[in-house]
């Protein structure tokens, strides 16, 4: 792999929220991820880019795919990975978050990938770090920036494929002006918040649709349109983001029953039939088939769920690479 140009204002930064990114930084993440897709196709799927760097993954909240995806990404870049098992750690013994992360930094780590059930925890950790970069792998209801980058990356690839071209080097041009419709539990969704920031930054028009109890507070202050007629909005949408009902965050009590939610806001077979033939569906996973998405829709060709998962690795490689690079360094392939 040849050296990539790297803009100085997008490297060496924490990745806490999409709202911190400039459009240049957003595009840089997408383009660097394209370059790392090539590594995925090699026989030895590993590059020495982050050799000697140590990445700690601190998951204070359960996760399967995000953790595996980040750790795989770090290993493909030849970083050493330290994984804190919270369940058996000093956190369980009452150690404060600050002491935990300061202890880990004292071991000489270069990056912390953190997931936490509390919004803002990665921002606080970033303030407490002297030199390590912090990558947010999901904080409470607040943000999940790499998931939004994956969604944009995957959608960009799918649109390019529909147009019979490569997505590499297209920036956000394939996303500009697209109609994005986000459906479901937006109130409790960090994915929705990061998607809104990312799609709006990329120039798309974002609409949201949810029962009143699952809409964000004060939606008029958000850069989105709230739509009430879901069927009409589906017929016009280019991209539909279906969110998981977050029962672990209590979203179950915000609707009378999951069956009623499915009937009124679920991506059922009937609703999928309203979509245009070239519309795309994303879901951050894990899907709850039969609740927010029907099994048939989940397996529909227009549904990008599996590609989102496989794109997780190159996008997180890009995020780690950009966070750990300095302006003087390029990618050494």
């Amino acid at each position, binding site marked *: 792999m040849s050296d990539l140009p790297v803009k100085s204002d997008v490297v060496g930064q924490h990745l806490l929220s999409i709202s911190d990114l400039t459009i240049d930084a957003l595009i840089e993440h997408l383009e660097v991820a394209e370059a790392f897709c090539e590594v995925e196709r090699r026989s030895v799927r590993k590059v020495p880019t982050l050799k000697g760097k140590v990445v700690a993954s601190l998951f204070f909240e359960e996760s399967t795919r995000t953790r595996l995806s980040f750790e795989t990404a770090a290993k493909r870049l030849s970083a050493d990975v330290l994984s804190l098992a919270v369940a058996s750690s000093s956190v369980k013994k009452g150690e404060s978050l600050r002491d935990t992360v300061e202890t880990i930094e004292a071991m000489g780590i270069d990056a912390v990938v953190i997931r936490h059930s509390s919004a803002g925890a990665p921002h606080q950790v970033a303030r407490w770090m002297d030199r390590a970069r912090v990558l947010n792998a999901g904080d409470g209801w607040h943000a999940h920036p790499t998931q939004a980058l994956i969604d944009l990356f995957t959608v960009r690839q799918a649109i390019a494929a529909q147009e019979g071209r490569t997505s590499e080097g297209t920036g956000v041009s394939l996303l500009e002006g697209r109609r994005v419709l986000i459906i479901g539990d937006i109130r409790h969704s960090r994915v929705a918040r990061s998607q809104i920031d990312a799609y709006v930054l990329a120039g798309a028009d974002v609409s949201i649709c949810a029962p009143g109890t699952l809409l964000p*507070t004060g939606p008029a202050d958000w850069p989105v349109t709230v739509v009430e007629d879901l069927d009409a909005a589906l017929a016009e949408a280019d991209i539909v983001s279906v969110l998981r009902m977050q029962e672990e965050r209590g979203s179950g009590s915000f609707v009378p029953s999951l069956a009623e939610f499915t009937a009124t806001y679920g991506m059922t077979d009937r609703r999928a039939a309203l979509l245009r033939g070239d519309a795309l569906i994303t879901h951050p996973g894990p899907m709850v088939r039969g609740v927010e998405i029907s099994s048939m829709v989940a397996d529909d060709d227009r549904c990008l769920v599996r590609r989102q998962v496989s794109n997780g690795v190159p996008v997180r490689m890009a995020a780690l690479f950009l966070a750990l690079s300095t302006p003087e360094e390029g990618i050494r392939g």
Partner: protein
Amino acid sequence: MVENLIVRGGTVVRSSEVVSADVAIVDGRILEVGSQIAAPTGAIELDATGCLVGPGLVDLHTHLREPGGEEAETVETGCRAGALGGYSAVVAMPNTIPAIDSAAVVAQVIALGQAAAIDVAVAGAITVGRAGQILSPMAEMASLGVTIFTDDGNGVQDAGLMLRAMQYARGLGVTLAEHCEDESLAGSGCMNAGSLASRLGLPGRSGLSEEIMVARDLALAEATGCSLHLLHLSTARSLELCLAAKAKGIDVTFEVTPHHLHLPEELCASYDPVFKVHPPLRTKADIDALVAALIAGQIDAVATDHAPHPAQAKDRPFDQAAPGMLGLEHAAALTWEALGAEGDGRMLFEVLSRRPARIARLTEASERRGGQSAHGGELMAGEDANLCIFDPSRRPIVDPAALASRSRNTPYAGRTLTGGIRHTIVRGELIVRESEAQR
């Protein structure tokens, strides 16, 4: 140690007049107030040039944390912080461990207060253990001079129980003070509810949760005739409800805090728990309404809700961190600033001393409260010598490391204040001299 003192060259601020005068203090009392008066024998001369000389400040809302929370604050350290802030008396809130819900704990805190730099009045809990279930023995505590009862930290959630508490309190001639937040609405919220909280992914604590309890308690006070004080009101609508109730003749007073007069909810976007407090920091529109009411003289008291927390209670994720912030050491400057840093000082001492002293019934000395002196006076000869000497020209910069409190959770770190306390005199003792605590 009580010495003879003379305060020279200041502007003495009374309720009805402001005069350039010296104040002579002998044996713990004001001997004479007048122009160029003779110094008492051996008196320490205190320069008050350019300063406002008023009654010692009275805080209706101080968490001294003792007993049980000594890592955050003790009566001694909290009172030193109060003295540095110009206070001669504070009302200690009862959310200690154990709660102040019996004569035994009241007596313990009064005894601790007797050894402290300033007078400590004690508020008792309305319900046993502040648990909101059973009325506490208010009569037993009232016999030790307790005049204010509150479950502060939480409101009394059950309207039926609050009605009964008011009926009982009215017969005792004491005041109930309410922390107005309906928990069914406030829930686990940790900042002001609204689009900002929603963007930040933080659960909200709505103004509605406060206003609904304000409205409820005003209706209960009207029905019972009980004297009601509403703690730390934070929204424009709470203010509106209270002013309407007062106009109707309901026996209600209310306080606002310096932080609700100054700090907007936007500070929470840093996710720094130093800005987490209950009720939460509100919108600029709420701040503007409270400040306008303060300037118009409609606010009964500015009270600090001084809430010390050790670092480990604040070095936590925002939603898990303890709510509350320090207040005593900087309240006078912040109130002066909210008043526009102008005027003759009368409103400053109204809201920080005279009105709160009346609400807490500290205007007379009390043997029952362990020989506490009279506060919120007019600086007339014969009064107990409790004085606050405030210098509007000072521009101190807040340094958390330099605070007298055991805790460091001030939201004003690095801020340049408008004005500062130069001297504090309590019961004739010079406890703060040139902004330095003397004990």
